[in-house]
């Protein structure tokens, strides 16, 4: 990659000095070990297969030492040439020895800051700092690994600079909003749609196996069970001890069992929301809230599923209260929704009844689904573009669909199968509302906004006790 300032490759001096005498810092010295331990063990196992087979411990140990030495040496080389420094409005990261690479990350474009601690990091007291900037394709700004204290201080400094306040401001205080109890997480996994399906598939097989004395049937059920157990584990691991707190820095989301993750989403960086209500969760009035944050969608489905969740499971009232902190002054349940016309029945039989959409002066809401109900919310100012689409079958029926595009993420607001005239009006109106929303949006440096009276300021708290997930 090229040096951003002049578009040509320039040599990076050994000890870069920036105005003010701030020298670039290196990552934590234990980084090569923390990053490579899994690979080193894998390499040892592969190279020392014979030693494993013969249970020759001495040889195995020798191979382990050799592989570790080589790995650490290579890692140390990379570590020596990786430096970072905060320069005014940017975070600059220099890497590489032969191919020098400098990456400037504009702090005013910061979308989210995450501090991630994998298991080995927690044991060693290390943490990884991840910066998400607009347009990121994952791994945009990744500093792995720093010591925990340094990571937290750096995060506070970066957020302060992004907010437009003095960078020496200490870490912003936070107010706990929601903590998701383990019983809720477990219940949500057991009540997810696939779990009863899996039971219905596996249990008869096991019963049959015993009834017919045919153990082979169990062998069929086994991989199915393993697959579902993996999915369940991932969901539980990701949602363990999920807490949502708010601070002047934005929303703080903490979760994780083995790998502990701490995400900070500054105000105004939530592009869209989705509230999902699976069928079996309605018994407990639970919903799940997911968000679109620019930069979170970069690394593919699995990573997106892990980071784009605002609340993995919570009672509906609690979820609406949290959404009320992100979108102050918006009452989701009071937005007037217009259902799809009966003509939509021929385009989407049965499920057309679940389609509805509407807008008030702050957000656009689209609802879909009968069994799993889904509500997509897009603030007007966050609409990127509006698309009007009509396929040949829709043309025949006089229908069209409208899509509101936001940044990449799980939420895609779709208004399906409206009358053509209605869809046209919707497109025109939404383009106008988006323009008004953009005009009324706060500045990117959120702390520099003039203080507004009324219920618009969502952060800082007035001492009211936060709602608790029960």
């Amino acid at each position, binding site marked *: 990659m090229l040096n951003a300032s002049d578009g040509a490759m320039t040599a990076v001096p050994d000890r870069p000095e920036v105005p003010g005498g701030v020298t670039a810092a290196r990552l934590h010295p234990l980084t090569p070990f923390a990053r490579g331990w899994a690979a080193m063990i894998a390499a040892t196992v592969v190279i020392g297969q014979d030693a494993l087979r013969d249970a020759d411990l001495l040889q195995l140990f020798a191979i382990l030492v050799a592989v570790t030495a080589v790995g650490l040496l290579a890692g140390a080389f990379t570590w020596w040439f990786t430096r970072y420094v905060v320069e005014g409005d940017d975070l600059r990261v220099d890497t590489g020895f032969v191919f020098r690479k400098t990456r400037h990350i504009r702090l005013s*474009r910061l*979308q989210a800051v995450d501090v991630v601690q994998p298991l080995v990091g927690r044991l060693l007291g290390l943490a990884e700092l991840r910066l998400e900037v*607009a*347009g990121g394709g994952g791994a945009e700004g990744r500093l792995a690994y720093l010591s925990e204290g340094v990571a937290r201080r750096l995060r506070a400094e970066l957020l302060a600079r992004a907010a437009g306040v003095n960078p020496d401001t200490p870490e912003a205080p936070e107010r706990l909003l929601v903590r998701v109890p383990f019983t809720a997480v477990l219940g949500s996994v057991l009540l997810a749609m696939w779990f009863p399906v899996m039971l219905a598939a596996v249990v008869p097989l096991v019963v049959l196996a015993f009834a017919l004395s045919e153990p082979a049937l169990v062998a069929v059920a086994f991989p199915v069970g393993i697959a579902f157990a993996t999915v369940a584990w991932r969901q539980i691991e990701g949602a363990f001890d999920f807490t949502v707190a708010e601070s002047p820095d934005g929303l703080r989301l903490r979760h994780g069992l083995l790998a502990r993750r701490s995400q900070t989403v500054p105000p*105004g*960086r939530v*592009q869209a929301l989705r509230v999902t209500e699976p069928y079996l969760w309605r018994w407990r009035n639970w919903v799940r809230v997911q968000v679109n944050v*620019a930069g979170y969608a970069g690394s593919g489905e699995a990573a997106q599923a892990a980071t784009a969740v605002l609340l993995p499971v919570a009672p509906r009232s609690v979820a609406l209260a949290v959404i009320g902190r992100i979108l102050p002054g918006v009452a989701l349940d009071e937005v007037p929704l217009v259902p799809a016309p009966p003509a939509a029945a021929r385009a989407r039989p049965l499920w057309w009844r679940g389609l509805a959409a509407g807008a008030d002066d702050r957000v656009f809401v689209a609802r879909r689904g009968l069994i799993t109900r889904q509500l997509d919310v897009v603030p007007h*100012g966050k609409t*990127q*573009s*509006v*698309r*009007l*689409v*009509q*396929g*040949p079958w829709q*043309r025949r029926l*006089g229908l*069209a669909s409208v*899509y509101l*595009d*936001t*940044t*990449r993420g799980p939420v*895609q607001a779709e208004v399906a199968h409206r009358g*053509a*005239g209605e*869809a*046209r009006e919707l*497109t*025109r109106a939404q*383009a106008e509302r*988006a*323009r008004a929303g*953009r005009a009324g*949006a706060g*500045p*990117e440096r959120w702390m520099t906004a003039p203080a507004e009276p009324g219920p618009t300021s969502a952060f800082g708290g007035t001492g009211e006790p936060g709602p608790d997930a029960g």
Partner: protein
Amino acid sequence: MTLDPSRRPGAETVTAPPAAAEAGPVDPFGLGVGWTAVSPRLQVLRRSVLLGLMVLLALVGVGLIVAPGPGTLAGLGILALTVAVTAAAGGWVLIGRNYLSWGYAERDEDLLIVRGWLFRNLVVVPYGRMQFVDVNAGPLERRFGIASIQLHTAAAASDARIPGLPPDEAARLRDTLARLGEARSAGL
């Protein structure tokens, strides 16, 4: 309305039968906007490529028929020939229809792009949301004297393209979009 021959004013509502698309794609959704069509050279380019490929396929087919050998080769040859002829005829019509459906309109705050004959698509891209504007011209496009513009917003789904623009129009559009995008730029 100017006398610009490339402009095709019209008002075709969405409920009009597809056959009326021959008259011009413009305003297929009835928004009451004056659309600018793209250069007819786009049509010529695409049809030339189609004909070239189909002639090649037909030659292969004929070769297979004429060549001595088992009957299956002749059968394949006939198949290839049939495919070539149908694809050429069908593609010719489809390319024409698709070309007619392309249009764009510059409004005060946003750019509208309409495309598609079977699957009609209209996208409204606000100037303030445009992050990059690229002008691309591959070797064939340069040969035929057209270029295409690619817009990037923060949403992957709304990356809009306008192909078949005359180079000076492409340059003008890119400069206008860049200027307006900068002027109305909105934070993410």
